[in-house]
C-alpha cells in the first residue's frame, strides 16, 4: 500500500516535471501595442497567429492598451526592467530617451541583411525612428498626417471654398461666425490637438528647417526665432477672430466630442490626423458622405510649401527591447505583424500602411496617399518629436497661447530657455 502511494507520487511528480521542461523549451514573446479598435486588434492577432503557426513552440502574449495608459505602462515596465520584447511607439523624442539609455535593439543590422523587407517601406517612414543614422523601429500601422477635415454641405450652404491662404481662412471664419457656426472644432484638454495649429503655422511661416534647427541646436536655430513668435501671434489672431468652438481648452478628444460638434453642424472644420477620416466613416456614415479635407493654408510671405505635412508616415512603429532574450525571433515577429497580409488587412480597415505600391481603391485614402507622396517634407508631431520635457512645455505653451493666457514672445522664450538648459545638461 505504502509502496503504491510512493509510485503514484513519483509518477505525478515526474509528469509535472516533464510538463515544466516542455514549457521551458517553448519560448514566449511579449508584444505590446495600442490598437484598441476591434478591427485594429484583429489585424495584429491574425498576424500573430500566422507567426505562431510558422514558428511552433513560440508563444506570443499580446496586450493591447489604450493610448494614454499605454505611455505610462510602457515607461513603468522599462523602469522596472520588465520590458516587453516587442513594443509600439510613435518614434521621435520619447523613443530616443529609451534608445539613449540603451534599452532598444538597433535594427539596422537586421534590415541590412533583409533588403527586400527594408525597401518595401516608403523612405519617409523611417525618419521618426532613425537616431544617429541607426534604425530602431519598423513602421507599420498607418499614415497619420494632419489635414483640415471639413463639412462640404456647410461650405456649400454658405458658398465657401476651402481656403488656401491665411487671409482666405480668416474670411471663411468670419462668414461662418456670422452664421453662428464655429469655424474649427477643437478638443484641447490633452493639448496635442491644439499643438497641430502651432506646428503648421511655424512650417508655413519659416519652412521645415526652422523647427528642425531649433531642435538640433544647429545653424543658429532657436525657439526664440521670430518665426515661433509670429506663429503664436497668428494663432492668437485666429482665437480672437472667434474661430474655435466654445470650451475648446477643456474638451476631451478621446470622448469624441470634437466630432460631435462637426456632426451637429456647430463647427465646420477640424484640424486632425487622417485616422479621423476612418473613425468618422465608421462612426457616422451619413456625415462621412459630406466630408472632405484640404491642406493647412499658406501664409503670405511665408517660406513653407503648401504641401509640407505635419504627422507621421508609419504611426505606430514597432521596436525590440534590449532585454529581449531572443532578438532574432522578435525581428521575425516584427516582420510578421507588418507582412503583406497584415498590410492588406489594415488597408481593409481604412488605414494606410507606409509601404510602396499599395493598391488603394478607397477615394479618401487614395487622396491621403497622393498627398503624402507629393509632400516635400513630413514633420513628426511636435510633442512626439521633442525630448519629453520640452514636449510637455510645448503642449503647455500652445494650450496657453490658445487660451490667450500667455504672450507669443513669452511662449517662445520659455521654450528656448528649457531647450538651452537641456542642451547644456547633455
Amino acid at each position: 500500500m505504502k509502496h503504491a502511494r510512493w509510485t503514484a507520487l513519483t509518477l505525478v511528480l515526474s509528469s509535472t516535471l516533464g510538463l515544466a521542461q516542455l514549457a521551458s523549451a517553448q519560448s514566449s514573446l511579449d508584444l505590446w501595442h495600442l490598437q484598441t479598435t476591434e478591427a485594429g486588434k484583429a489585424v495584429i492577432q491574425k498576424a500573430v497567429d500566422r507567426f505562431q503557426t510558422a514558428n511552433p513552440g513560440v508563444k506570443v502574449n499580446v496586450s493591447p492598451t489604450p493610448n494614454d495608459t499605454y505611455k505610462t505602462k510602457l515607461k513603468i515596465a522599462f523602469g522596472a526592467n520588465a520590458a516587453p520584447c516587442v513594443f509600439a511607439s510613435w518614434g521621435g523624442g520619447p523613443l530616443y530617451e529609451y534608445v539613449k539609455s540603451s534599452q532598444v535593439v538597433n535594427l539596422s543590422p537586421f534590415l541590412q541583411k533583409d533588403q527586400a523587407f527594408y525597401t518595401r517601406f516608403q523612405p519617409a517612414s523611417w525618419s521618426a525612428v532613425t537616431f544617429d543614422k541607426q534604425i530602431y523601429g519598423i513602421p507599420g500601422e498607418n499614415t497619420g498626417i494632419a489635414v483640415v477635415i471639413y463639412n462640404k454641405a456647410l461650405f456649400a450652404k454658405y458658398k465657401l471654398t476651402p481656403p488656401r491662404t491665411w487671409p482666405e481662412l480668416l474670411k471663411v471664419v468670419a462668414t461662418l461666425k456670422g452664421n453662428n457656426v464655429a469655424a474649427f472644432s477643437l478638443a484641447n484638454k490633452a493639448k496635442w490637438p491644439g499643438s497641430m495649429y502651432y506646428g503648421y503655422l511655424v512650417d508655413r511661416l519659416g519652412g521645415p528647417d526652422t523647427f528642425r534647427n531649433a531642435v538640433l541646436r544647429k545653424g543658429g536655430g532657436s525657439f526664440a526665432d521670430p518665426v515661433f513668435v509670429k506663429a503664436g501671434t497668428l494663432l492668437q489672431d485666429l482665437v480672437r477672430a472667434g474661430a474655435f468652438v466654445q470650451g475648446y481648452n477643456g474638451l476631451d478628444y478621446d470622448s469624441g466630442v470634437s466630432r460631435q460638434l462637426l456632426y451637429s453642424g456647430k463647427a465646420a472644420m477640424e484640424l486632425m490626423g487622417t485616422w479621423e477620416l476612418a473613425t468618422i466613416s465608421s462612426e457616422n456614415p451619413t456625415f462621412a458622405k459630406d466630408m472632405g479635407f484640404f491642406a493647412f493654408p499658406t501664409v503670405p510671405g511665408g517660406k513653407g510649401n503648401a504641401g509640407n505635412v505635419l504627422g507621421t508616415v508609419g504611426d505606430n512603429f514597432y521596436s525590440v527591447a534590449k532585454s529581449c532574450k531572443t532578438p532574432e525571433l522578435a525581428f521575425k515577429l516584427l516582420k510578421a505583424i507588418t507582412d503583406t497580409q497584415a498590410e492588406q488587412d489594415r488597408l481593409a480597415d481604412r488605414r494606410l500602411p507606409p509601404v510602396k505600391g499599395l493598391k488603394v481603391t478607397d477615394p479618401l485614402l487614395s487622396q491621403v496617399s497622393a498627398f503624402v507622396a507629393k509632400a516635400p517634407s513630413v514633420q513628426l508631431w511636435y510633442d512626439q518629436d521633442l525630448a519629453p520635457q520640452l514636449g510637455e512645455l510645448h503642449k503647455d505653451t500652445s494650450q496657453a497661447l490658445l487660451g490667450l493666457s500667455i504672450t507669443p514672445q513669452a511662449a517662445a522664450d520659455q521654450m528656448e530657455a528649457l531647450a538651452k538648459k537641456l542642451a547644456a545638461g547633455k
Partner: protein
Amino acid sequence: MSLTAKPVAAAPSQARRARRPRQDWIAVAFLAPAVLILAVFLIYPLIANFRLSFVDWNGLGNTARNVGWNNWLELSRDAVFVRALGNNALLAVLSILIQLPLGLLLAVALGRASRGSAFLRIVYVVPLLMSSVAIGTVFRNLYDPNFGAINVGLRALHLDALAQDWLGDPRFALLSVIAVICWQSIPFYMLLFMAGLSSMPAELSEAATLDGASPRVVFWRITLPFLQGTIRSAAVLSLIGALRYFDLVYVMTGGGPTNASELMATYMYRTVFSGFNIGYGAAISSAMFLIVVVVAGLALRLTRRYQTEV
C-alpha cells in the same frame, strides 16, 4: 507613543513583572508583520524617493546623474509648483468649509429617526460608492459647454449669461472640479458624523429637551460639543486629503487649462510620466510629503490645544 512610554500608575505585582518579557515577545510577534509591511511599502519607498530627488534621471537604465540640491532649488522657483500648491490650499480650505458643515447637517437631519431617512441615507451614500473615474467622466459630460446638461438647462431657462465654459475657462476650471469633489466626499463625512452621533447617549438630548431646550440649542450646546473629537478628525482627514488630491482633477481637466487646476499630485504625475523627469518628480512628491506632514502636525496640535481649553 512607544510601547513602554506610559508609566504604570500602580506598582506592578511580582507576578506581572515576571510575565512581562513574554508579553513583550508576543507584542513584537504581533507587530512584526505590520512593521515589516510598513517598512517595505512605506518607509523604504519614502527614503528611496528622497534619494531620487537628488538625481537627474529619465527613469531608464543606469543613466541617473547626481545633481545635489538642484531639483529642490528649481522647485522653489517653479511658478507651476507654487500655483499647484496654492490650488491645493484653496481645495483644502473649501473642502473643510463645504464638506464638513454639509456632512454634519445631513448626519443630524438623517439621524433624526424617521422612516424615509433610511432610504435617503442610501441615496446620499451613492457618490461614495462610485469610482472617481466614472464620476469624472459623468461630470465632464454634464459640464460640456455645448452639449452638457448644465448649460443646456441654463439656456432652456433663458439664463444664457450663466452658461459658462466650466472646464475650459481658467477662471472656473478648478472651482468646477472642487464642486464635484465636494459632492463626492460629503457622504463620507456624513457617515463619520453619523457614527459619532450614534455613540451619543440619547439621555443627554432628551434631558435637555425636557428642560425646554429647542432643537437649535440642543445642536449647539450638546450635539456639537459632543462631536468635537469627530469634527477634529474629519477636519484633519479633509486637510490631508486635499493636499494630496489627484484623481478627479486628473480625469476632468488634467490640471489644465494652462495649469489653472494643477495640483501638486497632477504636476508630479505629468513630470514623471510624460516628461520622463524622475528626479524632479521625486522632488515634487517629497516636498508634498513634507508639506502634508507639517500641516497635519500643526493641525493636530492646534485642535488639541483648542480641545483642552474648552
